[in-house]
């Protein structure tokens, strides 16, 4: 029982008035499921590293959160994903950025940490490394959700009107 796990699903302009009971309970349910998964792993003696990886994978697979499936779109209409993992035992770390076909970027980040002499791979290099190491790749369409695509369209339209500022309001700031 001597374990602790803390998780987040993103911060931002999350306003009570925008949050329906149904939506709030859906988010709470997802957070509770991830906490339960991670807690059970730690209870069964899995490492902190395994627990954080699998908890983040669960959240990446949940389209409500801005990571993996359900990620926000770039202005070019693409999902460019980033992830990192770090082991407190020896401060070893792995990170990937701007990947577009990796189903669970946190899995690739861990492979970089454990199977390469580098800390970070980006873009095509990261995708090639994934292929060499059998990390699951998907068609970029896998990440699509209408909600996020519509958010991007609104944002791009708004930015045409006024100078681009990523310090915008509403949840588009964090996707």
């Amino acid at each position, binding site marked *: 029982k001597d374990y602790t796990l803390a998780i987040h699903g993103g911060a931002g302009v*999350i306003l009570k008035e925008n949050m329906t009971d149904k939506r709030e309970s859906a988010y709470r349910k997802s957070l509770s499921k991830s906490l339960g998964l991670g807690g059970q792993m730690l209870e069964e003696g899995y490492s902190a590293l395994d627990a954080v990886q699998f*908890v983040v994978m669960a959240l990446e697979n949940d389209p409500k959160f801005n990571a993996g499936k359900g990620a926000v779109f*770039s202005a070019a209409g693409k999902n460019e994903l980033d992830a990192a993992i770090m082991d407190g035992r020896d401060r070893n770390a792995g990170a990937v950025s701007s990947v577009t076909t990796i189903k669970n970027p946190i899995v690739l980040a861990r492979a970089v940490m454990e199977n390469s002499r580098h800390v970070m791979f980006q873009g095509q290099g990261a995708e090639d490394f994934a292929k060499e190491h059998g990390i699951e790749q998907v068609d970029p369409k896998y990440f699509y959700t209408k909600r996020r695509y519509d958010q991007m369209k609104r944002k791009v339209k708004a930015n045409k009107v006024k100078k681009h500022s990523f310090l915008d309001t509403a949840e588009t700031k964090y996707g």
Partner: protein
Amino acid sequence: TVGAVAKDGCGNLAAATSTGGLTGKEFGRVGDTPIIGAGTYADNRYCAVSATGTGEFFIRAGVARDICSRREYLGESIAQSSNHVIHKTLTDMKGDGGVVAIDEQGNYSFAFNTPGMYRGANKGGKTLIEIFD
């Protein structure tokens, strides 16, 4: 952005963060998540941190490593260090977002300067889930 920090039964710490970035971001833009020391950091001696927010500010402030450094050099608690870095260092730069952080004793802290952060904790089976400030 999603993230997790954990202390296991052997006293080891770890941190993990994953994101799609910012809606409407420019091609090739990378935020703090994959930058070790900005959005993700873990050191068994002091703390593990996972961040979410406007990445540009977290990179410039080196948020995740700074929270650990305040514990290392000033001996602050995880609550003191994470709250200082979010509510002073980051806020003074006009940055916004939040962190989940944990120390080597298994104490955890949520610190954020936005109206809400999806967050939860499980300490030895006792769980807590919050969304709003």
